[in-house]
């Protein structure tokens, strides 16, 4: 074979491999079902509704408590490296284990988990497309025994904080000191400032509205009825409609930071854009002193 021919051939193979590699961040329920006994795979469930995991989970899945094991329970921050290592060691995960995450509530918290795993540099992480919802729709069996795996000694990589946006980063984009596109994944009413938060929710901000320049793309537009993500083409079009096409770095936010990790996953892992998750989200921004806010509905905090 001639030299240009082999270069072309290699290029074709690489190009063919790329979408396959991009495909790999999602696994189907079918794949999980077939790999339940695969020693190189570990399934973790990240659900927040009480009792959901215990009443029935994918066989062999380890339950992860989001509030205490993926978030710092005292200080508002992501889980520390030490606690993360303890969690993974307990679950019997080693550096080359393929970790599959899924959960309730549309995989929001599983997506947060994915983001944390990426921050701490785990090599192979996947999300089970559709989460609990799809598994239930397909009437696959649930298990109620809590598995025990032989413990390992897991070492996390130093945190990759390029995946995380902090308040100064967001302000930098608002004040046009650095390029960026902000994506707000909350409901249209919250975005417009009509309400501070959905009814009955306790975590409020003192001001309503959105970060100036942010585009509204509610997370629900990125998934199908059965909980699976829409096709890459549809997602690309969805974000292109609001001017998010990957040419500028993106920052996603919501109210607390969990739903925004879901959209972070879509933009970064499925579409390959440069994205950071602003986990402080509106509960930080809307309570911060002296930051610019866009409040179309004009709702004012009446300080009752």
């Amino acid at each position, binding site marked *: 074979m001639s030299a240009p021919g082999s270069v072309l051939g290699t290029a074709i193979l690489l190009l063919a491999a790329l979408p396959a590699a991009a495909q790999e961040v999602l696994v189907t329920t079918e794949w999980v079902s077939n790999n339940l006994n695969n020693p190189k795979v570990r399934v973790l469930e990240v659900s*927040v*509704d*009480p*009792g959901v*995991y*215990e*009443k029935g989970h994918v066989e062999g899945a380890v339950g992860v408590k*989001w*509030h205490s094991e993926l978030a710092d329970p005292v200080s508002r921050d992501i889980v520390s490296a030490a606690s993360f290592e303890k969690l993974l060691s307990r679950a019997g995960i080693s550096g080359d284990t393929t970790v599959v995450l899924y959960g309730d*509530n549309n995989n*929001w918290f599983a997506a947060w988990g994915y983001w944390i795993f990426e921050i701490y540099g785990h090599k192979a992480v996947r999300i089970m497309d559709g989460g609990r919802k799809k598994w*239930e729709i397909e009437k696959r069996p649930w298990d*109620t*025994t*809590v598995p*025990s795996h032989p413990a390992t000694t897991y070492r996390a990589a130093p945190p990759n904080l390029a995946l995380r946006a902090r308040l100064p980063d967001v302000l930098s984009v608002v004040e046009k000191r650095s390029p960026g596109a902000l994506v707000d994944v909350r409901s249209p009413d919250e975005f417009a400032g009509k309400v501070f938060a*959905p*009814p*009955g*929710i*306790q*975590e409020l901000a003192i001001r309503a509205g959105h970060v100036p320049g942010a585009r509204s793309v509610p997370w629900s537009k990125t998934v199908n009825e059965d909980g699976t993500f829409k096709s890459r083409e549809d997602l690309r079009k969805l974000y292109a409609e609001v001017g998010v096409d990957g040419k500028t770095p993106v920052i996603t936010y*919501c*109210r*607390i930071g*969990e*739903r925004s990790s879901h959209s972070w996953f879509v933009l970064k892992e499925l579409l390959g854009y440069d994205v950071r998750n602003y986990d402080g989200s509106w509960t930080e921004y809307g309570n911060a002193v002296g930051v610019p806010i866009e409040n179309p509905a004009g709702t004012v905090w009446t300080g*009752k």
Partner: protein
Amino acid sequence: MVPPRRWIRWAAAALVAAGLLASGLILHDAPGRGRSASFSLLCGAAFGIVLQRSRFCFASAFRDLFLLSDRRAALGVLVALAVGSVGYQVVFGAWVPDPSAGHMPPTAHIAPASWHLLLGGAAFGLGMVLSGGCISGNLYRLGEGSLTAPAALAGTVAGFWAGTLVWNPLYVRVVSTAPVVWLPSHLGYAGSLAAQLALLALLGALLLRYMPGLSPRPARPVTLDVACRKVFVDGWPAWAGGIAIGVLGTFAFLRTRPLGVTSEIGRASRALGSAMGFLPERLEGLDLMAGCRPLDTEHLLSENGIFVLGLVLGSALAALAAGEFRLRLGRPRGHVLSLAGGVLLGFGAMISLGCTVGTMLSGIMAFSLSGWVFLAGLLSGAWGGAGLLRRLS
């Protein structure tokens, strides 16, 4: 009002049963509902049937000990607690392999234990004796056609308001610092099961020793006709009801939530009171952070509401089949006592975050100290109530 003839009764019972099953199927596939809601309805119906058939009345279990030296209903309660304790432990073993690791089984009614439960239990105990039934008792009586039960339930709503008004200071001063004592975390599973069963056995032995029972009736040969009468018409013995309730309690815990009848009533009372503007906006310790998780605001009835509805319908079904369904007007004095007792029921249930079913039954089955403390409160309240009834009659 004379109850309708036998075939009308049976037709009505069949209709109610068919309605329950059909609703169960509809809920199963309804968007936003699902298996859990369907199970709640059917579990509630089973609970209502058992309560009505075995005349399982917590109020009489306590009251008749003092008033009539009748131990039968109390024994039934002890049997329910014992059976449920075993069932819960089986579920614990699957969900929480190591009880001493610091994690509690989710959704189990394990609550902070302090003197607020004695106060709540005493109020509830007094209320249930005065109104002739605890909250579940009034609900199943409602299914039998009682028209004094609505008075008790109306009083319960007012009682919840009263309890809500004192909740915040009570929480801050008492509940927030009260210890949550889950026995298995201290004694292990085997140790706590042995200790609790021993205590229940001791209480049962005391009842058997010091309160006289009935001599058994001569046994009739069991033909199909006799068997049908025993199941559908005659009352079931209290111990049989107790076993059924222990089993239902375990099933409910495994599939949905522990047995309880006050969650929806409390929620509705709070919604009504808030709409009328006199309740505090936030209840400390109860309005917890939900995170991004959406709260269930779209449905008229929560799953507990579905359970309670099932309870009333199940009781109606059993009463119709047995010929015990009848619109009973009751006497004016009965309505007044029901209303007054109901207020005490609601108050006691609010500050104890549950009633004889939710706090006592489900708490003790879950090996929580809170269940036992509430039980002590109930005993003292019922004793006082029995004395009051005697003086009133």
